């Protein structure tokens, strides 16, 4: 699979969880890339995605920044 195809797969997985209402809860970054933990605020159910492409890492990071800004606004 090309790097781009791999990115599309990772992006779809992230989008799928976000659309279902999951929030990013923790990120572990190591030699394998990033492991992104998601949590659902309602039932506390958890999912983890392994993101291995550079564009995938940019993508979930952008979503995280958006999430931080919205939760900050909500907290205010």
């Amino acid at each position, binding site marked *: 699979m090309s790097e781009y195809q791999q990115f599309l797969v990772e992006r779809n997985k992230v989008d799928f969880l976000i659309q279902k209402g999951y929030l990013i809860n923790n*990120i572990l970054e190591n030699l394998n890339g990033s492991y992104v933990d998601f949590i659902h605020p309602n039932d506390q159910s958890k999912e983890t995605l392994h993101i291995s492409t550079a564009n995938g890492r940019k993508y979930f*990071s952008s979503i995280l920044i958006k999430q931080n800004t919205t939760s900050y606004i909500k907290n205010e």
Partner: protein
Amino acid sequence: MADLSINLAGIKSPNPFWLASAPPTNSGYQVQRAFEAGWGGAVWKTLGDPILNVSSRFAAVSFNGQRVAGFNNIELITDRPIEVNLKEIYETKKRFPNHAIIVSLMVEPKQEKWHEIVKRVEDVGVDGLELNFGCPHGMAERGMGSASGQVPELVERQTFWVKEVATTPVIVKLTPNITDITATAEAAVRGGADAISMINTINSLMGVDLDNWNTIPHVAGKGAHGGYCGPAVKPIALNMVAECARNSRINVPISGIGGISSWQDAVEFMLMGATGVQVCTAAMHHGFRIVEDMIDGLNNYLDEKGIASVSELIGKSVPRYSDWGNLDLNYNIVAKINTDVCINCNKCHIACEDTSHQCIDMLTDTNGNSYLKVREEDCVGCNLCSIVCPVDGAIDMVEVSSDLQPMTWNERQAALNLVAQCKTDVAK
């Protein structure tokens, strides 16, 4: 016509083009001819205890037909007594009162030595002084030049000694042979420098003769490292100027030096924070009259841009120079090959396939003609294909819009830290 005059820490000159302290400014005869040709200022060849030079002093790199892409020398400071130089400086200043004459100085790191030379030189009426803390060979072995200039405390102390007696502006000329030039630039400012100039030459060995295994150049079969300058060093010099310009603790004017060969180079240095520029190698390569093109080109550029004074350029690009961590990770460009201009040499394909991201395909159209096409989704926008392409306009790097908000590495890391923090807070 725009106003080309500059004022660098109180030193006024009719244009921003000065000759750097080097062979072109060795004598009154030369500096006066340079002023006649149009140079706005000259930094006199470094004065100090007259030295002895070796024979066979220069060497140059020719790169693919481009003569003097880089230039190397093992010449020292002036070999003429100070009275001779001072007499010529006096005469030159009298003939050209509106041109800037700055005198470069280098003595041992002793207070009385600095006091003596500063007083003697200022007595003949100069517009400023430049302290040579940069010469990387010969003088350095005697504790002067870059040996002084690599130690921030010595830069600060010697600048301070000069400022104790100097009545004209003092420019401290810095060596690039140091990991972080802002350390010595800050030291110069702490010592009271009115301005800084950079760069002096970079330690270099030009080559080894494959037939007789001598160094290039060699002196009776022996070589020693020299100082490198000319077009090849421009990017290094420009970065050093920019790093100093964006450092808030270095709040003095900068005289930019290093590889400046054209008015375009000068404009780049000024945009990156230099108040004026100094030139050595280009004058040695092409003669004094190269300044005519520099003046004309600069004038036309300013007129086309509707800029009234060259000083308006100073530092305009500095806010655009930052750290890698502040660059937008979501900004994307991709290569576009213009098939009507492309000559199908395949250099871009080879470069991309062998050394980059394998995203340029060699294809054949329905008529059997070969063409090259970029798979944009796999292109990371590295620019390599457009760099190796021999035909202007065959490859454009174009911005592709992103659905994502701008995001820097620093912002990303802050967001990751925040999530980790929240998690710990929850765990508590």
